[in-house]
């Protein structure tokens, strides 16, 4: 038992020492006077109050619907801009603007999301749930950026800006801050009252405990989920409107508050409102403490922005271990077969060939319109193929092992930075190996605090790491040249050959990186046939069953993270080479998200989907240029992947799967696919007949015993119950009903019909 605790203890001590070091090293010299402490408290509590509001809405939605809304802060951002539009730009009175935004638009968004998207996600895998809400986040960011162009500065005034506020000792608490705290307390009390004193709230809490049971006792899970989404959006709106005067109306900053909300929610273990509110206050106070007492030197300029990410990390260390649950295995009904080695070779050969002939300029018919082989596009192609390799690194991780990580782009960024120190600047390839050796354990380190927790926390931890890497690691002046030109990279030299990346001579690098991409793709396609991939997929399909056949889940997760980290690190080395220079702002957190989403949309378990994802990413600037860069397309790089990912609520398996299912039969050697298709059609027809039969009965509530026995007859379960009176008496529903409903045969129900 002691051994189990000590790595955690070690981590806690390490983080504590790190934080202590940062505090001591950056002590600003402000005395711990009463005035300073009072300022710290006033600022911190007000800020923490806003965070608490934001996070409590997130928790209410998550607890009642099981869906963690990554778009929560982005929705708040959109609502803050809407409020600015009404109250500032159109000059509506504050109460009216407020009422329209918070009581009309916010609930409408919430109910709309619930109806159109979220209800479909209830039984979806975690990967799909996460992709859809991250997609929603990007879509909301994109829409906000399109409507309110960031080129114009906007400010949201504080409430009662003119008046002086309240004097507390030597410190003035502005009315805005007082209102903020009052609203936060009001919302906390209001939520408590709603959840414990109203019928809706009691239904909501019942649904948290057991959706199906709550449904039986008369709570309406559908209405509850609509209400909780509406409530979530309203709190996001309140938080957005309150915080925008402090942080400015900047889309990225406001949407990034999701990390803050996630950290506070993690402190509340995603279910406890009081602890979530406490979490918000802790983060607010920490930031205020850094603001009042610390002064970060130029080495750590952005460190205070990473505070929420660090707190999220610490919170994860204190969470209790997740149990291996049974009965939650997701049943995916896919028919597909393994890619044969020669098919993998053909596929990766085609990918390489396509890019190769394009880079050589052997495809004349694109003309100057679309995807033209200009220097600009060659440069972009180089960058896109590097991103493709990073995307490939996610296939075993997310696609097979089901471990959702947003950190791989950050790891690649760190790899790029390290490569510049390991001789990459001089075009020396030996550093690549070193980088991979560092990035493999780095990938592991990121995942470590979350390995013993459920999958969602892993996604949060990796998001926090990406934020931390962006704000603290990459921006440290020892890492990259902080000037505008950045750190420069010489072209790579391998065995005396120099792979040029110079303008006008770029196709060499494009061909080189495409070759590497194809080789990685081939490698992963072949790897899917090995025991490693099988074990990871098994682990993702059912962790409990994997453990009971002897799989050490922790070791397997560590393996896949290390592999993924090493590949991402390799890609990172290419990152600097592809553009010839790296700047500190080369790796913003949001840059990687569209590719993760596009990979998921294409089919996260298939290596070829990485290439499709890159093509998808390339299509956005191409379309934009083709249409002459209209202003409504400025944010297409966000809206495009965002909307595509939202579409996964309707088609969760990915385009490669659907294309394979529907089109594989066209390949002359795929007789099996043609047969499979026939089976599918037959099965669907049979299911529809059964559905029609049930519909024809016209049964409505209340369900009398008579109606139930009618239903039993249609489903062929009537005889069953008579045979086993013992079982029937205690109403044992486990399994018996499945008996005939799924057909007696061992082969899928439709097989006999078609084959026989």
């Amino acid at each position, binding site marked *: 038992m002691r051994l189990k605790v000590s790595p955690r203890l070690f981590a806690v001590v390490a983080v504590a020492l790190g934080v202590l070091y940062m505090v001591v090293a950056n002590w600003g010299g402000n005395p711990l006077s009463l005035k300073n402490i009072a300022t710290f408290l006033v600022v911190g509590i007000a800020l923490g109050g806003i965070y608490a509001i934001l996070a409590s809405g997130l928790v209410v939605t998550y607890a009642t619907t099981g869906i963690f809304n990554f778009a929560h802060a982005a929705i708040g951002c959109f609502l803050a801009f809407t409020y600015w539009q009404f109250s500032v730009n159109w000059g509506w009175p504050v109460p009216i603007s407020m009422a329209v935004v918070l009581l009309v638009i916010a609930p409408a968004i919430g109910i709309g999301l619930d109806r159109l998207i979220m209800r479909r996600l209830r039984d979806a895998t975690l990967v799909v749930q996460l992709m859809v809400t991250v997609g929603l986040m990007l879509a909301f960011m994109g829409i906000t950026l399109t409507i309110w162009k960031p080129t114009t500065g906007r400010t949201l005034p504080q409430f009662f800006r003119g008046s002086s506020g309240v004097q507390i000792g030597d410190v003035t608490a502005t009315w805005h801050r007082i209102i903020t705290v009052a609203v936060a307390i009001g919302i906390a009390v209001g939520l408590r009252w709603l959840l414990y004193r109203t019928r809706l709230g009691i239904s909501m809490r019942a649904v948290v405990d057991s959706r199906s049971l709550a449904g039986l006792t008369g709570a309406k899970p559908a209405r509850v989920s609509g209400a909780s989404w509406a409530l979530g959006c309203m709190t996001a709106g309140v938080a957005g409107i309150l915080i925008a005067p402090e942080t400015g109306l900047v889309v990225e900053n406001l949407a990034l508050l999701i990390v803050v909300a996630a950290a506070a929610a993690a402190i509340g273990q995603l279910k406890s409102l009081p602890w979530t509110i406490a979490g918000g206050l802790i983060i607010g106070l920490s930031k205020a403490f850094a603001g009042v007492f610390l002064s970060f030197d130029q080495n750590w300029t952005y460190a205070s922005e990473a505070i929420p990410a660090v707190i999220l990390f610490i919170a994860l260390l204190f969470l209790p271990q997740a149990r291996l649950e049974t*009965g939650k*295995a997701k*049943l995916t009904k896919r028919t597909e077969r393994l890619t044969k080695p020669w098919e993998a070779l053909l596929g990766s050969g085609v990918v390489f060939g396509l890019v190769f002939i394009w880079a050589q300029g052997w495809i004349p018919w694109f003309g100057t319109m679309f995807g033209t082989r200009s220097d600009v596009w060659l440069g972009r192609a180089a960058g896109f193929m590097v991103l493709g390799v990073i995307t490939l690194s996610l296939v075993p991780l997310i696609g097979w092992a089901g471990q959702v990580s947003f950190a791989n782009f950050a790891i690649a960024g760190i790899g790029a930075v390290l490569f510049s120190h390991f001789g990459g600047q001089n075009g020396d390839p030996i550093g690549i190996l070193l980088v991979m050796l560092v990035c493999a354990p780095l990938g592991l380190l990121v995942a470590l605090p979350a390995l013993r927790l459920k999958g969602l926390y892993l996604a949060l931890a990796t998001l926090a790491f990406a934020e931390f890497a962006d704000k603290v690691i990459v921006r440290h002046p020892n890492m990259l040249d902080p000037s505008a030109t950045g750190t420069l990279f010489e072209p790579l030299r391998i065995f005396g050959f120099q792979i040029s990346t110079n303008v006008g001579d770029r196709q060499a690098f494009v061909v080189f990186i495409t070759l590497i991409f194809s080789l990685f793709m081939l490698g992963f396609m072949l790897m899917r046939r090995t025991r490693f991939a099988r074990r990871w997929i098994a682990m993702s*399909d059912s962790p409990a069953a994997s453990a009971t056949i002897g*799989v050490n889940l922790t070791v397997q997760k560590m393996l896949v993270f290390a592999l993924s980290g090493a590949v991402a690190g390799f890609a990172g080395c290419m990152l600097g080479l592809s553009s010839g220079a790296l700047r500190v702002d080369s790796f913003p957190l949001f840059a990687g998200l569209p590719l993760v989403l596009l990979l998921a949309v294409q089919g996260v*378990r298939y290596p070829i989907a990485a290439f499709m994802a890159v093509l998808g990413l390339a299509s956005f600037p191409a379309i934009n240029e083709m249409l002459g860069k209209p202003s409504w397309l400025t944010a297409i790089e966000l809206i495009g992947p965002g909307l595509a990912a939202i579409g996964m609520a309707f088609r969760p398996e990915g385009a490669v799967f659907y294309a394979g299912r529907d089109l594989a039969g066209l390949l002359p050697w795929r007789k099996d696919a043609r047969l499979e298709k026939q089976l599918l059609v037959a099965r669907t027809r049979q299911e529809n007949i059964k559905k029609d039969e049930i519909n024809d009965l016209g049964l409505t509530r209340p369900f009398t015993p008579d109606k139930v026995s009618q239903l039993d007859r249609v489903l062929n379960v009537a005889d069953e119950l008579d045979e086993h009176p013992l079982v029937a008496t205690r109403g044992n529903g486990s399994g018996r009903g499945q008996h005939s409903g799924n057909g007696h045969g061992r*082969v899928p129900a439709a097989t006999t019909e078609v084959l026989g």
Partner: protein
Amino acid sequence: MSALLTTNDVVVRFGVLQAVSHASLEVEPGRVTGLIGPNGAGKTTLFNVITGLQEPTQGRVVLDGVDITQKSPFKRARLGVARTFQKLEAFSSLSALENVLVAAEQRRAWDKTKFDPAAVATEMLDRVGIGDVADFMVGTLPTGTARLVELARALATNPKVLLLDEPSSGLNEEETEEMAVLLRRLVADGLAVLLVEHDMSFVMGTCEYIYVLDFGQVIATGSPAQVQQDPKVQAAYLGTLPEEVSA
């Protein structure tokens, strides 16, 4: 005959609810031991305790003389505990063959004897009688067949004790009979089987010894005939109060 697997005074408490209370079982090699009881009696919870998915509030699990109460699930698997699940836990996005292959390959981590995992996997599928669906994705198979995949997967780990959680649900009569034959053959080879089952004719036909669980407590033990005659058992199943039965 000494017991291969024993649970000793196991208690599992969820808040105020005592899901399993002071349950002591002995599972002996070479025979099928039945564990029956109405819904919610704590059968599956006890399975989870034995396989390490649920930490008991109190009590011990002993395998072959070794206390495994504190061991993690994968270590117990390596010591010879295998199971199937009441609610399907098959690897639904792998083919039937791959499902079993994962288990056979994993066995290499502790089994030093030489064997070919692919051959073992094929053999196990044939053994449970589903060799014809080897290449089908398990998610597309009917529930009963997927259960047999789980069984083949459990067998591929070469267990000493096999825990089956309602293996016959989803099977038709003929298949249930085949399952009974298979179980008899397995125990004849020296395997210890602990069976949770609601199909009474199946239980009575295959089990040599039965434990009856109600509200987490063992209320009766004995041969099928003894257990069937027990008034407490009838009361538990028919929901009649014990007083009325004795009256």
